[in-house]
């Protein structure tokens, strides 16, 4: 087994990832997250995942080994901010050509590394593997090793060619590369009892800097941030931190967990989106540090800072209350952010009428219920048309979302504010929440939405596209309502497992006829993978009465 497939297997075995831990041996082998479906729209590849995870290391030259496709379309595409070096923004690639593909690209890669060393002399070079050289068998590990020795400089292979899987896998493979080649290879100049690592924080739009002053004030030192505004030396010596925070995403959970395992650095998963979350995260950091031997007063000092900052931010949000009163918002975004900004928005006076839970965990959903009430719309995988109707029916005044949903929002003629990554404003920390509220205010009151809502003056009702689309959906809904059989067919046709296209009816039938009670059992009796659809199957199991096989069936047996 090559080192790459070993690394992939290792990532799939990641015990920190609840999803993977619940898979069967066979499924784990099959792969992480959703299987890509040929012919359907898909997100970024493993290379992209690795690249965006590591690109924010600022004093590193990021060299992409492959034809122009990979780096040509991706260099400097993320607004991570750097406090110093800028070499991370320079696009380095071997730009492989036909000859390289026939005769192998290793030599070219080696020369490219040499030229970077000669002309730029960066602290380190990260070499990214891509599909083509991986397929022709270029051994970038060997080239990097040789180059490292020859030039006396860290040359780190990042083995995550696009074809191995999706973006999230790539991020984890990037983490593996750090664990294998970088972390623990150097020692910090000095250590303090207040040293922490931030893992999975990218300093987009300089967000981290909005929080850092609070750390500075408390005397907490970010020994290493992986990877926003990160330096090679910092991550190389990050194994001396006392505690770690995994920021927001599970993308690098393997790094956090393995550092705990290898170096005894405890970590927690936290977020700086939202006021409560910021406070919780600061508290947790202080608690972990004190547990690891930092002076006790840190906790008290942290509480003081939290109290001050919270008071400040609530005061800043206060003036928006009258403007937001009666305004309804929909929040469409993945995972943690969904519930973490809810409190702040509610405090600002917005009524939240729904949020997406596509990427949320069960706990996330519980939190949402807690904060928004039982009736909150929880939007899962939704067809654009359904989403459109829901937006329209909900009569929301604004939709807060990541870039992908904007199009539906716009077609549904609804104001929209981007709160995901490719945005211009930084929303992290206490200050960030005020900024978010300010931006929501602007979006809500922008007069151009009037144009969006209003149809063209010459449009009569019969000819209005929006109304037509709604009428179509409504007609369908009416038809379903009128015909119980059709309603049931429609209900049962709902896809539960997207990978294997297993619908609700099939699963319900299996549960009913075999008296299934666990996901494992459902998996055995249907084609459902039980990976990304695990939570949906759980919900079905909860919703179905725990039943022994029906009497008829028993009789038959």
């Amino acid at each position, binding site marked *: 087994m090559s080192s790459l497939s070993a690394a992939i297997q290792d990532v799939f075995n990641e015990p920190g990832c609840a999803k993977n831990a619940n898979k069967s041996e066979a499924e784990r082998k099959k792969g992480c997250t959703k299987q890509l479906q040929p012919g359907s729209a898909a997100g970024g590849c493993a290379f992209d995942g690795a690249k965006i995870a590591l690109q924010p290391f600022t004093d590193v030259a990021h060299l992409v080994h492959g034809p122009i496709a990979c780096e040509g379309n991706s260099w400097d595409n993320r607004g991570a901010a750097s406090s110093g070096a*800028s070499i991370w923004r320079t696009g380095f690639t071997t730009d492989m050509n036909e000859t390289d593909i026939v005769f192998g690209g290793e030599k070219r890669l080696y020369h490219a590394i040499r030229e970077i060393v000669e002309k730029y002399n960066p602290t380190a070079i990260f070499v990214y593997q891509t599909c083509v050289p991986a397929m022709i068998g270029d051994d970038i590990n060997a080239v990097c090793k040789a180059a490292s020795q020859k030039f006396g400089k860290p040359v780190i292979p990042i083995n995550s060619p696009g074809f191995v899987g999706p973006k999230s896998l790539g991020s984890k493979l990037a983490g593996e590369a750090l664990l294998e080649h970088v972390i623990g290879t150097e020692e910090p100049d000095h250590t303090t009892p207040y040293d922490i690592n931030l893992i999975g924080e990218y300093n987009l739009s*300089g967000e981290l800097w909005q929080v850092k002053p609070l750390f500075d004030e408390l005397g907490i030192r970010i020994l290493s941030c992986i990877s926003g505004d990160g330096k090679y030396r910092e991550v190389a010596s990050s194994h001396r931190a006392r505690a770690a925070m995994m920021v927001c995403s599970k993308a690098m959970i393997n790094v956090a967990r393995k550092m705990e395992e290898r170096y005894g650095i405890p970590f927690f998963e936290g977020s700086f989106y939202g006021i409560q979350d910021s406070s919780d995260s600061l508290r947790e950091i202080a608690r972990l540090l004190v547990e690891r031997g930092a002076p006790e007063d840190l906790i008290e000092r942290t509480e003081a800072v939290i109290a001050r900052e919270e008071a400040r931010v609530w005061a800043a949000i206060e003036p928006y209350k009258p403007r937001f009163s009666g305004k309804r918002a929909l929040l469409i975004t993945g995972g943690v952010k969904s519930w973490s900004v809810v409190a702040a928005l509610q405090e600002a006076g917005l009524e939240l009428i729904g949020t997406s839970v596509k990427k949320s965990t069960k706990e996330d959903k519980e939190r949402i219920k807690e904060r928004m009430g039982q009736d909150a719309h929880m939007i899962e995988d939704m067809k654009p048309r359904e989403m459109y109707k829901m937006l329209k029916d909900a009569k929301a005044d604004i939709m807060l979302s990541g870039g992908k949903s904007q199009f539906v929002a*716009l077609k549904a003629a609804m104001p929209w504010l981007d709160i995901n990554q490719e945005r*211009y404003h930084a929303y992290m920390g206490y200050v960030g929440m005020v900024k978010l509220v300010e931006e929501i205010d602007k979006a809500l009151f922008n*007069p151009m939405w009037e*144009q*969006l809502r209003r149809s*063209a003056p010459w449009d009569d009702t019969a000819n209005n596209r929006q109304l037509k689309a709604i009428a179509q959906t409504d007609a369908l809904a009416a038809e379903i309502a009128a015909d119980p059989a059709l309603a049931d067919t429609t209900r049962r046709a709902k896809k539960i497992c997207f990978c294997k296209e297993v619908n609700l009816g099939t699963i319900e039938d299996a549960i009913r006829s075999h008296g299934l009670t666990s996901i494992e059992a459902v998996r055995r009796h249907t084609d459902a993978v039980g990976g990304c659809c695990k939570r949906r199957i759980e919900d079905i199991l909860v919703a179905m009465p725990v039943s022994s096989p029906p009497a008829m069936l028993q009789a038959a047996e």
Partner: protein
Amino acid sequence: MAQNAEHVLDHFELFRGPEYQQMLDNKKKMYENPRDPAEVERIREWAKTPEYREKNFAREALTVNPAKACQPLGAVFASVGFEGTLPFVHGSQGCVAYYRSHLSRHFKEPSSCVSSSMTEDAAVFGGLNNMIDGLANSYNMYKPRMIAVSTTCMAEVIGDDLNAFIKTSKEKGSVPAEFDVPFAHTPAFVGSHVTGYDNALKGILEHFWDGKAGTTPKLERTPNEKINFIGGFDGYTVGNLREIKRIFELMGIQYTILADNSDVLDTPTDGEFRMYDGGTTLEDAANAVHAKATISMQQWCTEKTLPFISDHGHEVVAFNYPVGVSATDEFLMALSRISGKDIPDKLARERGRLIDAMADSNAHIHGKKFAIYGDPDLCYGLAAFLLELGAEPIHVLSTNGNKAWEAKLRALFAGSSFGQNCHAYPGRDLWHMRSLLFTEPVDFLIGNTYGKYLERDTGTPLIRIGFPIFDRHHHHRYPVWGYQGSMNILVKILDAIFEDIDKKTNVAGKTDYSFDIIR
């Protein structure tokens, strides 16, 4: 010597050489009565204060850096829009040279126009002889289909009677009796180039419709389905009129563009010099009286023409340089109402695209503050569009705007929550604008090329929209009317916003952490 024949330096490099710098320094010291630099600096700073602004706005007699030009310029602009028409300005030739260079510098095209070259004698004894000779010469030399006469101040001050002069000239055989010589009195001491446009156009229509100065019977209106279109004085006439024709054709409306100068101000380079090109045919100009309606895109460019047309029995509709969704909607709805034709799907889609673009970028424009100056209608149209985008047109200044214009803008501001801090300044100049920009700063300035001095002095980035644009080429070829034209304005504004962000984030190692590829 910094300069040598092997490698000739351009002026902006050459005079930075030490010997020239020395020379200029010496001249300053010895002959230019230099002031104490600290005192100069103090005054410079003082000129930025509210105190200075008050004095500046108390100015009564002096106009400093005017944002308007004179009537005959507008007359020439309108006249060249007719088939084979030579603008003939009765007055001094120096003025005419200005109109030609002004138009040439903006449109990057030759500008054909003659004058009667009045001199001192003419000023004393009247310009009749100049008219007689002038018409004869230009008729023979330039073979026009029509000569459109306007005037400079000189002729107006001595009171030359164009009607009588032209009649006499015809009697004396300067031009054939049946040759079309419409005329308009266009003194620069009244109004501005927009007034001149109005007068010249009215003069031409009057000529054809009202019996050619008493030589033929007046036209009897026999209504048809056509719509007349008047663009007004417009720096974007080339792109705009082509866009308007496209819209008319898409809607299937029969139309006559009056004063269609889109071809003569944009002739191809193909080996042939076209002194005249395209334009409204004289026949169409005459037949325009039969139309169902006349639409003017600029109310203040047609203040006299529209009532004149209306008196001849058909409907007139005026807009104020419509830009943006609502304004274009209104324009198209008017076309649709008058013609009875539907808005075609193609235009509906263009509308949707404009809204889409506005939605995509709204966050960047939202709440940005703008100062605008220019012709009255242009100012109004841009201010309305900015309000639609959620921006604030804080200062709107028009040297040739009047009280009625101010009132109309006030009503516009009152209708939008983004207009609450906005003010209109009629009759003010660019030195007033300078005080406004210093004392109530804005994010961007919209104006013509002359705005670059304000940009330099106040640091307010200039978005070049207006007339004249001398220092940027070819913008006049792109429309700013219709949904597609509005898109061009939107892009211009956005470009400026993003360039400004880049400029503020491009210091290596200091601010470039935000020097991003994706905005």
